[in-house]
């Protein structure tokens, strides 16, 4: 490894990358040279994580892999320089996204049936542009409507590793409704 150690290479690569790096991508860093095993990589990541204790950045794992993230306690200082110009989404957008996240794969018609209003094409396109949703197939019913699902980037951007981490609403609405009605069916069903 040219005398550079594994941890050092990973550190640089993680900071240089714009997207999370997964184990596979980390392996490709080493090109034709003998690439490290997953165990070696995980050990190095663990050690790297420890090195950054007490620092203003930390190593986190999300769906797409590992990335460095600025520590949460700095939020008030960075709020002034936030990059997200379109940080606020309309209720219609959020409800459409929620339908896709919690019920995926889901068709537009199914979203409309639950929301009781037509789904705005702009909203769907915007969510696609944001790379939070994509078409994963077509439903075998008349018209073969597109089936939407969330992407890895959606999980990454919301800081999740898997869809299981989506907040469930059980805990917030105490008794009013039938309990099993709130058992979300997440992954691929229907």
């Amino acid at each position, binding site marked *: 490894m040219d005398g550079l150690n594994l941890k050092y290479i990973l550190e640089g690569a993680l900071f240089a990358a714009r997207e999370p790096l997964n184990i596979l991508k980390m392996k490709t860093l080493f090109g034709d040279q003998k690439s490290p095993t997953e165990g070696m990589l995980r050990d190095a990541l663990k050690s790297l994580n420890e090195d950054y204790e007490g620092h203003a*950045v930390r190593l986190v794992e999300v769906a797409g892999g590992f990335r460095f993230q600025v520590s949460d306690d700095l939020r008030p200082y960075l709020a002034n320089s936030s990059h997200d110009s379109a940080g606020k989404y309309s209720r219609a957008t959020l409800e459409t996204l929620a339908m896709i996240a919690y019920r995926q794969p889901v068709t537009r018609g199914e979203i409309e049936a639950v929301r009781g209003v037509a789904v705005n094409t702009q909203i769907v396109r915007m969510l696609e542009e944001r790379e939070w949703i994509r078409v994963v197939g077509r439903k075998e019913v008349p018209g073969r409507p597109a089936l939407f699902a969330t992407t890895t980037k959606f999980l990454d951007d919301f800081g999740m590793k898997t869809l299981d981490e989506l907040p469930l609403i059980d805990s917030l609405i105490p008794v009013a409704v039938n309990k099993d009605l709130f058992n979300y069916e997440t992954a691929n069903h229907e």
Partner: protein
Amino acid sequence: MIAYVNQGELALATVNGSPLTKIPENLYIPPDALEVILDSFEGPLDLLLYLIRRQNLDIIRIDVSEITRQYMAYIDLLDIVRFELAAEYLVMAAILAEVKSRALLPRGPGDNDEDENDPRAELIRRLLEYEKIKVSAELLDKLPRLDRDFQIASAEAPGINEFLCAPEVDLSELVIAFGDLLARVKLSSAHQIEWEPLSTRQRMSHVLFLLEERSELTLSDLFTSDEGRAGLVVSFLAILEMVREGLCALVQVAPGHQIYVRSMN
């Protein structure tokens, strides 16, 4: 919307720091205000849910006649002010009317509560379903989100532009993308605008680029004789277009003197 989850009521406004959840009965409300309120609903289910929650009612035990009455009052208003939006709301009104009429009918011996075609059960199911999504959307919005709540820690890697592993693009893909755009725009086009031929637009870019380096150019800097007549015409059109779009200014000290192209910066 947080308030909604916690207190089962939607605050219409905040007065002296405390949420106002009911329109005082003796208060005159100008129609415009109600229009604003209606605008804040995401559809008939949302409105219905609001009417139910406003009275602190359990969805499962809604009094259909009362809800129908209130709902119709809103619909009448909607009908007056925003007719084009009313379709979805009118469908719901019809559903409510059906539920109400069924409730008035005497029950036969063969009927039971689990009747699959019971419109009331179906309505309740839809309301519960919609409420789940509505609350989920609120929760989703509260999750820490990249760039809004947390940021990626990254460092520059000069000289490693390719790190992002740029895929190759075939020219035809670009053309198809633009064709799609045009086709899409055509569908929603309201009026036509003429665009300069590409060579002119390219020349505009070039002139702008030169102006970035030197904020002032002479006209003769932009006319190169080896381009011939066509080149001159393109440069001329580009400059005219740029002046029109406010991208540069033409300056001349006195008649007969050198003409300068000046950057607007």
